[in-house]
Each structure stands twice: as structure tokens, then as C-alpha cells.
């Protein structure tokens, strides 16, 4: 995350030499998988069937919090057509010592207890048992025959109630980590994180203006349209094949091996196309259950969640409560920030509160910052990563405070941000010194954009907000092969979640100096390429793109070597030009890829290169968004009139898919700001586990999303790439809230900004004006 390079993966060697030779990078070709996607031929997680496949279903808790006294599966197992039933008794016990690697999440003991509950259920929808049956109808009937004796326990859904000393405890053994001395009594606070930079007391002493405010946000689901689905087949030898959609086939392989205590080599995961993830498919729910059921039955087992199961038992990201104080001088210079961020972890520890603390004020050069984060257990599904995990809610608080400061000082909100903007060399509160960043450029672009000076009408308001995300690199693999006819196959181990096949082919084409159309890209299974970290952290175009570029550069050297062998000259007698090798002494003498492929047997065998690196040097992402809203004073409805997303993207490999990331992230953020929330009844049961009542933005809710791509290249990447996928969801919460505050003449600090909340606020503002 905050990565100072540990080892520098040979980027420098290829960086200056191979940049944009073919002119493919920066254009907008049709993606290699495009025709399959528009004709319905692409196969997603649920689109695979094998002969004799059983249907797997999950029995889930109807209670938010209960002790499991007895789970009786005998009647269900006796039903004709039921082939196997598993409970947590069938999962290997994972000791505390073996739960984590070097204290790093994930905690596999928790993950095991999340996929099948042990002793206690911790949220409505918590899995208790899984059934394999000959068909879905039989499986559903078997579900009704499982009998569980519960001792229902008091539950807690609300974040702040969960932090009270008398709150019902989810885990009676939970002692808050990160407090010295360690508390004697257990609580729902899983951990405390503290980030201190400078001296906040001294900073506030210099402040002319101090603003303190509290903010809350609701948990929101990633709401990918494809429910989790998988198929597992275990052979009598123990060899296990899994077909599933996920953000990483190697993640599924490693997690299943860990949870089921199997050798990694026994598990092969075939990546299906993924129907959206946004962080929500960076863990496993069904796969280990399908493997266990297949082990027991000897038949393939297919599992697919319903939409209600997706809402009740997967994701979401944390809801939050934040109380933050900001101090500034009269000229607008921010001198200190201090506050507390509390994030809902769900039923097991692991909210992204630390990332919230790190990112909140990262766009600004603030000398004194102290933020404390609390990770809090509540009787809700375990939170999962969601696009820039932890950042949007913290940014909502930070950007609202910046806007309040601008209003108090009667300053232009972009001018205030420009005054405080982080630059190259700025020491961040979270640790690193920024290099090669383009934040200021996004602010300048916003100020110059016609949107920013367009006139506004009655009941309308304009908000701006900025956002930051780290972006990561990490372990990445890529292979390139020259086929016998000279066509090129690029393979990677990273699911293509939004067009990355295209960017891989484009980078390879430019390094090789060949046409984009000459290259095919395949995302291959765990048995067919070296490990690669999952698709997440905005890392694929950067890190896997680096692996592809390096593989292509190595391939060029290999092809030159082959040609030299064929021509019986020294390798330095040949050079590479526009997809062909050229003999330096007589430049008319050339060999194409097809000719090189024809001579492969005589020059050392098939031509292939595989590269595996740990990519370092990811460039951070900054974005600034402008949002215009109109409020309906009668209903409180907010209409987004106009929206502009401006982002430093480093270098856009395929600009249309970069714009798509910015537009999609912005609209997800708009949903977070305006509509999306989980509603629970008094028993802790989710009232809106479906798309009708959990309302993500639909096409008629939003306008076109204008985009401005600022390109401040990342010198650590051969093409200058910075990750682009996550930062677009960071500014919208603040941008929408700031627009609403200015339109309403009063500020709302609780999301979502639903019509009743707006209506109430407008009435309050009207009363104040009387």
C-alpha cells in the first residue's frame, strides 16, 4: 500500500526505450473479448454445467445473533435425492496461530467461521449448513428439513450502540487490539489505530478558525449484477477443479487450500468471466463448500447465490461514524486536523478504517494530523472490500469540512484546495512522500472547465470534492507466445473486469511494434501461468501491464537472438523494427514474426517468454469532481444535473475504458450519497435484500458523466500508467453533499441524502430564515 520499493523490478531497463513505439496505446480499439460479450457467448460464473452435476444450496440463520445448540440434519439427509450435507464440523479447525500470515489479513479462522458458522451465528444469513442434491427443487425441500435449536441472543446493528460498554458482545473473547495496556474487559471494538503526524495541539493553537462536525454513512453493497457462483469437481485422486467468477483465480486456489487444508497443487481454478466485483469478489464464500460437497458425493457440485443471499451474506463496505475537527488560518491555510473514525467491521474484524485514516486528508499538505480509527463488530455480514476501501466515507467527512471552511472564509472551494494541495515532495500524514503526483493539475483543470463557471438556477447548487487512492503493484505474471503463423498470444492470470485484455494487448503491441489485431489475450487458469495477485487495488493495467511490457521486451531480445542464429551472425548485428528483425549490415534483409516462427525448430524450439515480477512504483491516484444538483423543495428529491470527473490517470492506455472507470465510479458514489442503505427491523433482519428496495442508480437517475483525463505520467511504468479504477468513487460523496449543502442553504452530514432527510433539512433552513 504505502510502498517504498523493496525490490525494483527491472523497470528502469525497459522504461525509456520502449515507450509508445507503435502508437496503439492511447487509441480506442474494440476489446478482444468484445464480440463474445455482446453475443452472449462469454461464460460467466453461473454459465458452466457438467454432466451429473449436483445442486448445492446453503442453509442460513434467520437470527442476527444466536448460539447454535443443535443442528439436526438427519431428516434432510434422509430425503431422497439429497446426496450430502455439511456443517462446520466438516471444516478443518484452524488454530489462532495458523489463522494469519505474519499478522496480515485475511484471518482464515474467521473466514472459516464465516463460510460455516461455529457455535454462534453472528448475522441474519450466516451460513450454517450446505446441501448437495440432485436438483434445486430437492435441495430447497431439504433446506426446510434442517432443524436447528437456537438460543437467540441480544444483537446490535447500530455502530455507536455496539461501542457502548453494555452492548451485546459478538465475541466474548474480543480484547481491543492497539491499546496499551490491553483492556481487561472484552468489547465489540476489535482494534484501535492511531495515525499521528506533527503536533495537533500546537497546530490548533495557530488556527484562527476551528470547525468540528460529526458525519455518518451507511454500509453499501458492491451490488455487482452477477451473484456469486461456482462449480467444483473433486476426483477420487483428490485433484480438485473449480470454475468460478472471482477477482483472482489464485486467491480462490490459495484460500480454498488454506481453509480445507489441501495442498495448493491439488487445486486448479478456472477463471470464468466476472460479472462485476468492485472488491466484493476478493474472498470466498461458496467455493470451499462446493469442494467439500463434491468430495463427499464424488459428483460435481454447482452453487449459485440468490440476490437475497448476496445482500444478506456477502460484502458490504462499512458504515461509519466520524467526528473530526479542522483548524485553519484566516488565509485558508489548514494547520491541523484531529478526529475519530469508527467503521463497522460486520461480524468479524477487518473494516478498512485504517485506510480511511490514511486517505481522508491525503490530498492536502497539512502539518499536523491526528486520526484515530476504531474497527467495530456488529451483527451484520462481514464487510468486504469495495472500490478504494475505506476512503469514500472518510473523504466525505474531510471534503465536507473543507467546503465548510471555504464557506466560512468566503473562499472559492477550489482556491482553498489549491492553497492546501499536496505536491511532489509533500510528506503525507500516513507516511510516504509524494512523487510524480498530478493533484494540483486536477484542481486547475476543474477551475478551467466550463462546468465550473456555468450559471445555476433556483434550488440548485454546485459542489466540488477531491479524492486520493494509493494504488498498488504487486506480484504479477504474464506470458507471450509466438504461434506458428506469427500471431501472438498474451496470457495473464488476472480476471478482466473492465477491459484489461484490451490494455494488455495494446501495451504488448506497442513494445513489439505490431498491430493490435495480431495479438490475442487469454486469462488462464492457475495451472497455466505463474501466480498473480488478484485483480484489485487498481493494479492490473499498472502491474500486470508492466509484466506484459517486460515479457514483450524480453521476447524482442529472444527474437533477435533467434534471427542471429538463423543468419549466423552475432546478436548485436540485428535490430528490431516495427515487428520485424533487421540485419544491420543490409537493412533490406528482414524477418517477420511468421518467418521467425517458421524457423523456431531450427533456432531452439517454440518461442515463448514468461515473466513474473513483484511490481513496485505504483503512482497514487487523485481526482477532483464537480457536481450540480437541484432540490425539489416539495419532495426533497435530489436531481443530479451535471457531473464532471477530473482525474490524473498517469497515461490512459485505452482512454474509453479509463473514462468508463471514472464514470462508473462516480455513479456508484452518487448512489452511496443519495440512495443506498441497509434497512433492518428490530430483530436485526434485513428489510431490503433486493434491487427493488436497495436502490442502486438506474439510467434515469443520472446525467452523462463528463470526464477530463489529466496525464501526469508515472515514470516507474513503461507507459506512465497509474491505477485508475478506484479513486473515482472517492470524491462523489463529498461532491454531492457539498452541492446539496449549497443548494439547500444548510448542511447535511448523514448519508444517504434521501428525500425525507433533504425535506427536513429544507424546512429547518426555511425556519432559520424566518
Amino acid at each position: 500500500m504505502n510502498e517504498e520499493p523493496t525490490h525494483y523490478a527491472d523497470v528502469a531497463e525497459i522504461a525509456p526505450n520502449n515507450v509508445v513505439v507503435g502508437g496503439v496505446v492511447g487509441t480506442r480499439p474494440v476489446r478482444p473479448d468484445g464480440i463474445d460479450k455482446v453475443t452472449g457467448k462469454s461464460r460467466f460464473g453461473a454459465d458452466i454445467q457438467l454432466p451429473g452435476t449436483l445442486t448445492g444450496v446453503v442453509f442460513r440463520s434467520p437470527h442476527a445473533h444466536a448460539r447454535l445448540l443443535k443442528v439436526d440434519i438427519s431428516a434432510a439427509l434422509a430425503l431422497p435425492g439429497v446426496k450430502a450435507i455439511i456443517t462446520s464440523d466438516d471444516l478443518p479447525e484452524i488454530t489462532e496461530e495458523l489463522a494469519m500470515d505474519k499478522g496480515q489479513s485475511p484471518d482464515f479462522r474467521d473466514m472459516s467461521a464465516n463460510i460455516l458458522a461455529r457455535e454462534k451465528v453472528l448475522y441474519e444469513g450466516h451460513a450454517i449448513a450446505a446441501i448437495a442434491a440432485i436438483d434445486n427443487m430437492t435441495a430447497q425441500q431439504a433446506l426446510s428439513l434442517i432443524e436447528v435449536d437456537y438460543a437467540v441472543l441480544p444483537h446490535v446493528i447500530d455502530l455507536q450502540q455496539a461501542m457502548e460498554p453494555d452492548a451485546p458482545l459478538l465475541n466474548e473473547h474480543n480484547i481491543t487490539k492497539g491499546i496499551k495496556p490491553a483492556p481487561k474487559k472484552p468489547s465489540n471494538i476489535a482494534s484501535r489505530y492511531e495515525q499521528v503526524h506533527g503536533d495537533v495541539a500546537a497546530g490548533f493553537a495557530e488556527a484562527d478558525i476551528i470547525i468540528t462536525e460529526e458525519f455518518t454513512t451507511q454500509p453499501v453493497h458492491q451490488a455487482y449484477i452477477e451473484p456469486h457462483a461456482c462449480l467444483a469437481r473433486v476426483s477420487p485422486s483428490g485433484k480438485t477443479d473449480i470454475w468460478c467468477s472471482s477477482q483472482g483465480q489464485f486467491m480462490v486456489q490459495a484460500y480454498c487450500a488454506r481453509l480445507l487444508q489441501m495442498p495448493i497443487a491439488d487445486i486448479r481454478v478456472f477463471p470464468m468471466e466476472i460479472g462485476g466485483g468492485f472488491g466484493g469478489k476478493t474472498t470466498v464464500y461458496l467455493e470451499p463448500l462446493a469442494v467439500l460437497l463434491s468430495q463427499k458425493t464424488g459428483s460435481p457440485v454447482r452453487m449459485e447465490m440468490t440476490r437475497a443471499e448476496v445482500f444478506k451474506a456477502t460484502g458490504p463496505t462499512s458504515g461509519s461514524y466520524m467526528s473530526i475537527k479542522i483548524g485553519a488560518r484566516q488565509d485558508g491555510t489548514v494547520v491541523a486536523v484531529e478526529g475519530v473514525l469508527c467503521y463497522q467491521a460486520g461480524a468479524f474484524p477487518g473494516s478498512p478504517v485504517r485506510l480511511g485514516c490514511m486517505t481522508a486528508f491525503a490530498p492536502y499538505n497539512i502539518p499536523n494530523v491526528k486520526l484515530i480509527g476504531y474497527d467495530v463488530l456488529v451483527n451484520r455480514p462481514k464487510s468486504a472490500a469495495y472500490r478504494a476501501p475505506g476512503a469514500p466515507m472518510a473523504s466525505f467527512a474531510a471534503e465536507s469540512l473543507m467546503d465548510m471552511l471555504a464557506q466560512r472564509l468566503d473562499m472559492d472551494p477550489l482556491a482553498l484546495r489549491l492553497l492546501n494541495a499536496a505536491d511532489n515532495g509533500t510528506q503525507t500524514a500516513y507516511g510516504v512522500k509524494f512523487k510524480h503526483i498530478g493533484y494540483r493539475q486536477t484542481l486547475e483543470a476543474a477551475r478551467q472547465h466550463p462546468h465550473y463557471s456555468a450559471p445555476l438556477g433556483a434550488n440548485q447548487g454546485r459542489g466540488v470534492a477531491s479524492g486520493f487512492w494509493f494504488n498498488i503493484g504487486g506480484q504479477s505474471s504474464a506470458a507471450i507466445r509466438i504461434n506458428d503463423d506469427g500471431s501472438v498470444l498474451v496470457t495473464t492470470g488476472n480476471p478482466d473486469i473492465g477491459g484489461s485484455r484490451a490494455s494488455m494487448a495494446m501495451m504488448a503491441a506497442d513494445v513489439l511494434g505490431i498491430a493490435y489485431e495480431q495479438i490475442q489475450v487469454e486469462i488462464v487458469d492457475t495451472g497455466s501461468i505463474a501466480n498473480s495477485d488478484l485483480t484489485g487495488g487498481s493494479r492490473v493495467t499498472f502491474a500486470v501491464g508492466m509484466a506484459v511490457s517486460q515479457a514483450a521486451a524480453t521476447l524482442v531480445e529472444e527474437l533477435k537472438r533467434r534471427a542471429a542464429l538463423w543468419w549466423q551472425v552475432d546478436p548485436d548485428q540485428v535490430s528490431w523494427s516495427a515487428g520485424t528483425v533487421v540485419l544491420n549490415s543490409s537493412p533490406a534483409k528482414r524477418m517477420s514474426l511468421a518467418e521467425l516462427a517458421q524457423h523456431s525448430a531450427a533456432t531452439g524450439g517454440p518461442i515463448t517468454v514468461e515473466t513474473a515480477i513483484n511490481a513496485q512504483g505504483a503512482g497514487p491516484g487523485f481526482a477532483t469532481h464537480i457536481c450540480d444538483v437541484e432540490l425539489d423543495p416539495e419532495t426533497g428529491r435530489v436531481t443530479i444535473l451535471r457531473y464532471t470527473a477530473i482525474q490524473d490517470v498517469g497515461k490512459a492506455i485505452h482512454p474509453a475504458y479509463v473514462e468508463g472507470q471514472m464514470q462508473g465510479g462516480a455513479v456508484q458514489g452518487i448512489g452511496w450519497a443519495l440512495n443506498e442503505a441497509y434497512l433492518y427491523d428490530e430483530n436485526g433482519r434485513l428489510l431490503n435484500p433486493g434491487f427493488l428496495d436497495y436502490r442502486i442508480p438506474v439510467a434515469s437517475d443520472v446525467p452523462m458523466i463528463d470526464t477530463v483525463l489529466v496525464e501526469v505520467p508515472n515514470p516507474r511504468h513503461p507507459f506512465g500508467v497509474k491505477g485508475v479504477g478506484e479513486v473515482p468513487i472517492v470524491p462523489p460523496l463529498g461532491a454531492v453533499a457539498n452541492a446539496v449543502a449549497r443548494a439547500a442553504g444548510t448542511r447535511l452530514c448523514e448519508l444517504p441524502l434521501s428525500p425525507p432527510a433533504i425535506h427536513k433539512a429544507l424546512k429547518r433552513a426555511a425556519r432559520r430564515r424566518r
Partner: protein
Amino acid sequence: MKKRVQSVVNGQALEFECETSDTLLQVLRQNLQLTGTKLGCGTGDCGACSVILDGELVCACLVLAVECERADIRTVEGLATGTTLHLLQQAFLDNAALQCGICTPGLLMASKALLDKYPDPDETQVRYWIAGNLCRCTGYDKIVRAIMDAAPKYALAQALPTETGDRS
């Protein structure tokens, strides 16, 4: 209880056997292996299973398969003519109107139903027509542009029967 049903799917007459409780979506995906039509919710809220049934846009998850006796059913698999893409399919590709692609088949069918009824829609019309088709990736911008881009070409193709815009 099993029942046999005769219908026409993508122009081809066929017969399938189904449970009376099976939805059209289940039959398309499981019995007929037409997995281009997607399950997103099973409750008619997301539009991923949009198909055209006797000329009307429907959610296949809300239609019982036994209701489809002698029905004309059009799915995403029937949009292209051989290897020639439908104008809407080409427009979605040209405009980068898909990211993960799970909503794409449903959106294509919804867009076709729109253009068959309103050949010259404005942006608002497009947005309201596809409001029943959820997309979580794109923010809809490029999808709306793709449909607006295809509309005049589609209208022209419809007017010229020799063009390969659509054969329904």
C-alpha cells in the same frame, strides 16, 4: 409435473420439457443452453434476463416456461446474423459500452425493443426505457451513447430491407 412446450426461439421452432414451476429463464439457460440470458436477481428488478417475447420486452425470470406455448422468443444469441453483428452490438463495442459485460445481453435486448418501438429516441427516452436494466460498472453514459449512436443506423437499416440490421 412435467410439461412439453413448443415455441420458436431465435427463429427456430423447437420443443422443450419443463416443470410447471420452471421460469423461461431456467429453460433458456438450462434446457436450451442459451446462457447469454443472465440471472441477476430472479425478481424482475435488474433486467439481466431481458428477452423479447412475442414482440414485448420481458424479464425471463418472471415468465413461466409453460406460458411460452407457441410463443416467439428472441434472446441475445439471436441478435447477430451469422458472424455479422447487429448494429446495436457493434455500437456497444464501438462506444466501449460494457465493462464486465454481465448486463450487456439484457441491455441489448432492451435497446432493440426500444428502437423497434421508438426509432428516434432522445436521451431522456433512452434513459427511462433502460431504467429497468441495472448496470453497476459504466454509470450508463457510454450505454446511452451507444444506443443513440445505433438509432439512426438501425432506422435506416429497417427502411432498407437489404441491409442486415435486423431480421425480426
